[in-house]
């Protein structure tokens, strides 16, 4: 069991309003879990809990058998917004993870650092190509990129450090259908090649069914209750085109009817 979530409860604000209530979830190593749910139902909160940047008010979260109190290198993260460092170029953003985890503040002054950086840059260029950016984009700063390009760079940045668990929050939301399909393929291929466990938050039911090996739906039963897992569907093989429409309808019905 890689991720073990046990009766987790989270509330925000004063007076506290429940966001997540009674979440129980077990995720095995190597699963590709897509998380669906209406906006504001607590999907991002769930990811932050697994990262360890927030803590549940009740219940506990074990990753690899123990509780984590702060984010670290085992759990990669592609946040919904502010995902790139604005002061670094695209290339430096992508190599930042490896540089920072291999070299301390002062080890950067040694020649070994520059040799290693050359390798890392070559690797980053490789990723740049795979996410469909041109090499002339490498020297740009994040706010010179379009929203979709930023999302793709953020994914490359998280992939570079090869985390065991990858948490992606609406990572494809700003992509056009064509690019989106390309990125889906890329993520799916990398997942197959590396065996990374992926949690993928999305609003696109169709995408969830095509990507994941498992789809979970978060939904509230009533307005003042926290969300819980309303449906947990395992998708052993990628869905064929004929089954998708009916499954999409079923999932969306669950997500919506619970909210009423």
């Amino acid at each position, binding site marked *: 069991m890689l991720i073990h979530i046990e009766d987790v409860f989270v509330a925000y604000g004063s007076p506290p309003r429940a966001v997540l209530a009674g979440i129980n979830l077990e995720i095995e190593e190597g699963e590709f879990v897509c998380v669906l749910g209406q906006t504001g139902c607590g999907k991002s909160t769930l990811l932050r809990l697994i990262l360890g*940047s927030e803590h549940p008010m009740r219940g506990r979260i074990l990753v690899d058998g123990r509780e984590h109190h702060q984010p*670290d290198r085992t759990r990669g993260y592609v*946040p919904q917004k*502010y*995902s790139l*460092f604005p*002061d670094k170029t695209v290339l430096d953003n992508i190599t930042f*993870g490896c540089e*920072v985890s291999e070299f301390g*503040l002062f080890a950067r002054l040694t020649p070994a650092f520059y040799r290693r950086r050359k390798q890392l840059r070559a690797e980053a260029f490789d990723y740049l190509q795979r996410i469909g950016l041109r090499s002339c984009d490498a020297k740009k700063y994040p706010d010179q990129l379009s929203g979709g390009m930023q999302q793709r760079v953020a994914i490359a940045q998280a992939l570079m450090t090869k985390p065991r668990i990858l948490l992606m929050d609406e990572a494809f939301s700003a992509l056009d259908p064509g690019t989106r399909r390309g990125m889906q393929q890329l993520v799916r291929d990398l997942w197959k090649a590396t065996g990374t466990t992926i949690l993928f938050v999305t609003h696109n039911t169709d995408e969830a069914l095509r990507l994941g090996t498992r789809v979970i739906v978060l939904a509230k039963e009533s307005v003042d209750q926290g969300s819980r897992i309303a449906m947990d569907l395992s998708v052993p093989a990628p869905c064929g085109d004929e089954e998708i429409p009916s499954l999409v309808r079923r999932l969306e019905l669950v997500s919506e009817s619970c909210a009423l």
Partner: protein
Amino acid sequence: MSVGFLLIHARPQRAWSAILSWFLFAAGLAAYLWVAQARHRENPEDRVTPTLAQMATGMYNAVMQPAEEDEAAPPAANFYDRLSHSMLWRDTRATSRRFLLSLALLIPAVLLGLHMGLFPYVGVFFLRFVLFFDKIVALSLLPILFIAFGIDELSKIMLIVIGVTPTIILDSFNLTRGVPPEQIVKAFTLGAGDFDVAYRVVLKQVAPRVLNSIRLNLKAVMLFLFAGEMIASTDGLAYRIALLRRHMGMDVIIPYVLWVALLLFLVDFAMRTVNRKLHPWFHEA
């Protein structure tokens, strides 16, 4: 000039912009000259509004001759020797030294603010005290400082430190707090440690804004420096201005005031240029 004159959508032409932006300078100068001329017609000995020629002579003497209390340079000295012994140069050097020293002391203030914003224990330890300290009117401490540190350099530097550092600390603290938490979480997930996050992620991101905040506070630094120099000093630009006031030396005071403004403008301009060069990704709001 089209229909949109004075409205939001107006687009002044380049020539018009240039003329309008210099207009108040020209008007100020003209008004001064007019008043000066009128006063000199009434009383040729007038000392309140020196003419341009008088100011030029006063300034020439300030640039070329040592202050009265110093011994003169050897008569055969060349231009540069005379310049380096001159009153203006000595005053400027003394003031700049104190000014740069105080600017250097702002660096620890920035780092303290950064750590207060990032490390909760540092934050709770210092925040309340700095907030309190910020409310003390630094000039009211002046007598205490003179008593405690004597009337030499230390008390003047301390005045600047006490007057300006709380603002800089609080400003860097707020800027640090303004960095989106996602950025910090992301850095940790990429394998950064606490100090990598502090210096390689957060400090680099807030640096241009902190520099801008220091630029805004240059005026305050100068204000406290001048207060210290005017009250207790034996050299410096403000000391000279205060001294010349006793002789009604307006022919030197006015050029000195403009010289100080020019120096401050140049420092600010240099910092802005450096900021642009160092942080090409930063767009000033």
